[in-house]
């Protein structure tokens, strides 16, 4: 008996018990749907993280004061006072892999304009900070080196701060009060949106680091240095010379922990990517379990079906069906069930990802490979769980099957 005939026969047999067939398929539908939705969400997350990492500059090297070791009594980020502008100058001088660097010293302050006020973070830095972070100016301009040298009261606003304080008004040239000091707004940054961590990168003010150090915080050290290497590979290669240099400059003896840490963007990217992969894998394996449960459902129903149709099997055997014909018939039925479940599951998965993407504003990236794998897997489930009932059907004795009530 040819395949198409068997397939047609299977469809008709399944159509006879529509409700039962639909319920049997449900396990596979949910399994495949879940696999596709989960993988889409996971891929979306990975994509978003990669975008976020790229927005921070792919060659970036981040040097921060404080210990990165997860042991002992750690000093918090920025609480260590040893990282200075001189360290930065030394890195630029002695590590040729580093192209440029910008200091970063931050504090939080209340910002006031007219009757509006807002609490935000103020970061003191140098003009090349924006180049390193590849962060363009939307209006006005970044403050210059002269303003850094003279510790002028100028600032550049992130779009969130600008929107809250100024609404529709043009802020360029306007005076705002940051803490106790008046600042002149010289520029507005482009919006960067949420960071990988989920915080608003536009809720920020930039000012010359000299101004922040001397006039606002009254400190001489830095919290971090944002550096940029000549290439992505160089960013990784620069980690050990920077570490050696800073250990020497900070007089850290052998065996003692660093009082700073160096991170590259690639490391951060890897961390996040592997985390999201792990999540995808975890959720995916739950989905695979539901596919297996679906398979068991198919086996159960096929066994019931074989029992119910004992007489039919008897007649088929009597009129000349071979064991192989009968086995093939029931196997194709099981595979048809699981395959149709797989197809409906794809639809469910796609609709599910679209809904998640729409309502949770979470990007989803539909993976063709996931769809392919889900379909292959559902067919595999049909074959493996349909095999036993089909085998059982083929082994019926025609004489007894014909007499079966």
């Amino acid at each position, binding site marked *: 008996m040819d395949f198409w005939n068997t397939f047609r026969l299977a469809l*008709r047999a399944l159509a*006879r018990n529509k409700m039962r067939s639909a319920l049997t398929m449900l396990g596979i539908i949910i399994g495949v749907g879940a696999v596709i939705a989960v993988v889409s969400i996971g891929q979306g997350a990975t994509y978003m993280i990669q975008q976020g990492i790229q927005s921070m500059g792919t060659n970036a090297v981040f040097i921060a004061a404080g210990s990165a070791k997860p042991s002992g009594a750690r000093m918090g980020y920025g609480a260590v006072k040893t990282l200075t502008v001189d360290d930065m100058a030394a890195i630029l001088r002695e590590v040729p892999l580093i192209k440029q660097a910008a200091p970063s010293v931050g504090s939080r302050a209340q910002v006031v304009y007219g009757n509006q006020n807002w609490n935000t973070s103020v970061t003191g830095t140098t003009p090349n900070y924006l180049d390193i972070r590849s962060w363009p100016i939307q209006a006005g301009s970044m403050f210059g080196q002269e303003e850094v040298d003279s510790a002028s009261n100028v600032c550049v606003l992130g779009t969130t701060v600008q929107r809250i304080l100024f609404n529709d008004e043009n802020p360029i040239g306007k005076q705002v009060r940051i803490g106790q000091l008046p600042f002149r707004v010289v520029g507005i940054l482009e919006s960067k949106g949420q960071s990988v961590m989920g915080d608003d990168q536009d809720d920020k003010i930039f000012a010359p680091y000299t101004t922040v150090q001397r006039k606002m915080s009254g400190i001489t050290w830095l919290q971090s240095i944002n550096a940029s290497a000549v290439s992505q590979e160089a960013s990784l290669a620069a980690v050990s010379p920077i570490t050696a240099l800073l250990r020497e400059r900070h007089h850290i003896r052998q065996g003692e922990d660093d009082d700073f840490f160096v991170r590259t963007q690639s490391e951060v990217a890897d961390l996040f990517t592997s985390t999201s992969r792990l999540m995808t894998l975890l959720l995916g394996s739950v989905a695979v379990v539901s596919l297996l449960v679906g398979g068991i459902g198919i086996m159960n129903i096929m066994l019931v079906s074989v029992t119910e149709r004992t007489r039919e099997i*008897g007649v088929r055997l*009597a*009129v*000349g069906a*071979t*064991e192989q014909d009968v086995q093939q018939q029931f196997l194709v039925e099981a595979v048809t069930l699981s395959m149709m479940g797989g197809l409906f599951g794809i639809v469910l998965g796609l609709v599910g990802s679209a809904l998640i993407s729409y309502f949770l504003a979470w990007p989803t990236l539909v993976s063709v490979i996931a769809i392919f794998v889900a379909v292959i897997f559902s067919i595999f489930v049909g074959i493996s769980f349909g095999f036993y009932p089909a085998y059982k059907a083929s082994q019926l004795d*025609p*004489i007894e099957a014909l007499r079966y009530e």
Partner: protein
Amino acid sequence: MDATTATMEPTSTMTEVTRRDGAVIHLEGVHKTYDLGEMKVHALRGVSLDIETGDFVAVMGASGSGKSTLMNILGCLDRPTKGHYFLDGIDVSQRSKVELARIRNRKLGFVFQQFNLLARTSALENVELPTVYADIPPEERTKRAKFSLERVGLGDRAAHYPSQLSGGQQQRVAIARALVNRPSILLADEPTGNLDSRTSVEIMDILQRLNDEEGLTVVLVTHESDIARYSKRALEFRDGKLRRDERIRERLVAKEILPTLPSLDDLDDEEQPAEPASAD
């Protein structure tokens, strides 16, 4: 598949060919023993017989006489424990399951007491069923199935489901199914057991016509001696042995008897006028 077909054809190398002229069935000392653990049940104890092409044989006997076992062996659904069964001159007593399936498909037609039609499947598709397993192209299948239905007078019911047909019609569909692969023998196991007497005669009429007009060999299992009288030869089994084998004298001809029987419609017609007449 070709190999199987080839082995079914009688070849000169087959020394056991003992086909006599016209003998479509030839049994030689056939035994069937069922091994039920400690006990052995001897269902058939050495049965030898010939059935000629074009014969119409009634197999009779009480339950436990071995007639069902004989039918299963004749139908290639079961194999004899001992002895030989030649069908169309070929020893089929020790063939593989696949070969037996092929023989059932090509050489035998079954009609059962319970009709055994597939539910929710049209009469035409029911009749087509054996052709599906015979590697016949789809158009040819439908053509043959239609022709087969016409032979039993149900050409106009092709699209009906078994549930929409009367018992007699269902049995006629089953006969059409048995005929569709042009078998050498029609095996009918109590074909009238579930039918009323008039419908039974109708079924016997079809079997007699197939036998008389087309020379189809018919083997009929029945426990009703009335029904056996429509055949040409009666075999009686008792305790696994053939006890009686005789030609039927004064054979009944269904075609002649049918007009003498009141049809169900006639009965209804007779009863109905009674009421309005009294109301007048």
